[in-house]
């Protein structure tokens, strides 16, 4: 995992989801509380759902579960994609807020196939896409009906498992606490006693913090610190000509040997190799690198999938 960003999703005022069509350039690794359904309408994109990567070609549908870190990249084949971001509250059992559902809907990997053909989910998704621009009351109810149909179908026809947590925090609070933690780590990643300071800062015991982070992000504090350090390294390597030793120091790696080992493990190559490749990354935390696309074409494709 290179880096992650928590994405705040603003849902539509009228229904508990955000639905949009876009063309993907590149989005950094990120995660959000929403369950995200992506339908590739044209071309292909590469989706990285750590630790797996898939090339999703047109006509394929994939669901990214709540709080799962993922990133997107365009391929040489220019893409148009439909995204449906569903609020996690829709998936919460009202009796048991400490359970998180994880659905297996991925027409590319096909590891755990749903009980109904993918075309059923693709059709519903496309029909949801067709309601985006309508402003009438009919559109609004149609959109809601389709969204709830999709959720019902997920529970009925898609295999899912449940993660059980113990949690003393309410759902509202969780994201605030997590943002505080992330912000703190970004500012203090170079400190040796970061765990201690963080615990004091947010008023949690070390064990509670561990559980909280693990349940929210599936990361330990150590993972989190490492990924932030590596992100810093990448930035310095691609934007400056500082020697690698200095980059390591400035990024909070005080032991060069450890630095090389961790870097290789995380990035899959040495810092020198990386620098030679000359890849440039932006430190900018823009998540969606959305490109222009032809709206008329998108509409035609949505209709095609909706009718199939």
């Amino acid at each position, binding site marked *: 995992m290179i880096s992650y960003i928590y994405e705040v999703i603003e849902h539509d005022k009228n229904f508990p989801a955000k639905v949009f069509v876009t063309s993907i350039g590149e989005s950094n690794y990120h995660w959000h509380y929403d369950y995200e359904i992506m339908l590739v309408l044209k071309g292909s994109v590469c989706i990285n759902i750590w630790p797996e990567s898939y090339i999703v070609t047109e006509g394929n549908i994939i669901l990214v579960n709540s709080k799962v870190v993922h990133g997107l990249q365009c391929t040489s084949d220019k893409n148009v994609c439909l995204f449906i971001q569903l609020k996690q509250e829709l998936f919460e059992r009202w009796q*048991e807020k*400490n*359970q998180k559902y994880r659905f*297996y809907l991925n027409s590319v990997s096909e*590891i*755990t196939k749903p009980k109904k053909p993918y075309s059923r989910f693709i059709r519903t998704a496309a029909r949801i896409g067709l309601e985006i621009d309508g402003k009438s009351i009919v559109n609004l109810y149609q959109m809601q009906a389709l969204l709830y149909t999709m959720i019902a179908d997920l529970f009925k026809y898609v*295999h*899912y*498992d*449940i*993660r*059980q*947590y*113990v949690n003393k925090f309410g759902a509202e609070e969780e994201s605030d606490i997590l943002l505080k933690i992330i912000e703190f780590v970004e500012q203090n990643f170079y400190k040796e006693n970061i765990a201690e300071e963080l615990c004091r800062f947010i008023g949690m015991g070390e*064990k509670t913090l*561990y*559980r909280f982070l*693990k349940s929210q992000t599936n990361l330990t504090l150590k993972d989190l610190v490492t990924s932030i350090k590596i992100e810093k390294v990448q930035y310095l390597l691609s934007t400056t000509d500082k020697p690698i030793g200095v980059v390591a120091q400035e990024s909070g790696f005080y032991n060069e040997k450890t630095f090389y080992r961790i870097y290789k493990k995380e990035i899959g190559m040495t810092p020198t190799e990386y620098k030679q490749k000359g890849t440039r990354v932006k430190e900018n935390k823009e998540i969606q690198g959305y490109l222009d696309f032809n709206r008329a074409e998108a509409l035609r494709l949505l209709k095609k999938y909706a009718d199939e």
Partner: protein
Amino acid sequence: MKCTKNYRLSYTDKAKRIVDELTLEQKVHLMGGTVTLKDMLRDINSDKHYNYTPYPAGGIEEKNVDPMLFCDGPRGVVCGTGKSTCFPVSMLRGATFDIGLEERVGHAIGKEVRAFGGNLFAGVCINLPYNPGWGRSQETYGEESYHLGQMGSALVRGVQEENVMACVKHYAFNSMEISRFKVSVECDKRTEREVYLPHFKDCIDAGAASIMSSYNLYKGTHCGHDDYLLNQVLKKEWDFDGFVMSDFIWGVRDTVQAANGGQDMEMCCTQYFGDKLVQAVKEGLVPEDKINDAALRIIRTILTFTEADNNSYDESVIGCKEHVELALETARKGITLVQNKNGVLPFSKEKAERIAVFGKLANKANIGDHGSSRVFPEYVVTPLQGMAKVAENTEVIFYDGSDMEHAKRLASDADYTLFVVGFDHDDEGEYISDDKASSYTDSVGGDRKDSLGLHQDEIELIQAVGPINRNSAAVLIGGNMIMMEEWKDSVSSILMAYYPGMEGGTAIAEILFGDVNPSGKLPYVVPHLESDLPQVDWDTTQQNYNYYHGYAKLEKEGIKPSVPYGFGLSYTTFKTFDSEFFSDEKYITASCKVKNTGDIAGAEVIQLYVGFNNSSIDRPKKLLRGFQRVELKPGETKEVTIKSPIEKFKWFDEEINDWVLEHMDYEVYIGTSSSNEDLLEGKVTL
């Protein structure tokens, strides 16, 4: 206990004086429930439920005779919603073999009954399951009469020490659910006296204030009308001083037969007593003496208990921390480790980064059936929630198991796999009809009439996914014996959790992860074949109960069980040695030393069996006649002494209609299960 039988009898004169002042109508009024069918249905069809408040019967205000105020059980007090402590079901409590613990449960229940405004607890269910498929087995303690008598008596004492009347049920032969309103049970006199009645007598001897007659018939007579069972055996032979009540609504079918048969109280609505009974007395069909006797029994018993103390209990005692802790302690002590290949249990918290949990019951608040024993606690900890709580650094992944390939992948990616399988209220429990919607229980219940095994999909799941990851265990949920043969080799460890109550999920997880060392013992035998057990026609008007059932039947027929009666493993090991056996005029005494030879603390249940191999008549190979739970620190040795009354060695001679002691050598065994391999043998001569 203040309100002992002798103490109650001291109220006879006072009660008689009151009876003498009453009109016939007033006396008959005492003998009937004052709930109307309409009220009952209104409770059931509203947001309340059956027995939401205590159900009253009788009561005469101007004479200061309180009504009887009925609270059902046994897994706690049925009244209220979101309040009562839900204890593990009686079957789990039977598996603790801990009489002191059951008394403490009785105390807690007694206090909660009083806080709800009740004065009687009808949760001492001690029916002996002829076949473990009986749908309400969860409400009783096990298959062994002696053990039933001991555990039931403990609950009677606990409840009555809080000055709440205990009602023992269902008298008698009530071990079939679907046919309960129509079946007539037949058995010979020896079976009746040696197998199906002794535990009732034990509870009466322990001082139970009340007894409930059963729905079923015995030899063609409704038990609620049965002169033989009620007048002759219970009131005359056993000298019972308390009162009989009928099972609800369908327990009395005829005014004259019931009254003359010894029925003292029609529950919980007055249908055949009341005006009809007054009329029957006036017509000379029922002697007024019968009415006087019933009134005396009811007044005497109620007066004794209501005047026993002036304590008052407020609602804060209901579901209080102490009681919930007791429910948890009980679950910890009753859950039984049946198999543990390669010591897979306990799971290591350090190694368990991820545990995959299969089976829909893992994610279900499952505290037992939805019939008259249903308790409504504030919360129920599911097995899944328990694991997330106990193994706080472990990722707990639940999958219902519907796609086998997905289940296999999860199992191979996990450090441990767990199956939570068995039954719920639709598989077994109180039965009204096959149509869920027309039944107040909102579930099917009934007997396990098709199979005593797991559901086919659960068996297939364990068979397919079990072998993927050998760090595996199955947790069984159910009210009685569950067959294991088809799948037991596909999983390393097996834990029987019964219905473990509101804190059951916590106890299961604590045992799985080694915070608690299991110490329960199966209160039933597990056979290799269902056909090793007595066969029952579950939907019938006629059923014979033969002399042999359970472990005694298997042993008599020379059939080795899959798991013996009284068996249960621990995470430590025990050694028994230095046994001694002797007898005096009243008791056989057996003793042995027991040592904890492992390196963690644990508890063992030392059991005493008596053998009848030298008998000149047909008798069992051996029977349980004593037990003692003992806790041992690592390396510690204790001496355990168990006394068993010789009275309990007798057989019932039909010819002279009395109990007879055979003068011969008896084998006496002391050890850790009913299997001879786990027992030290000796001999006493009587």
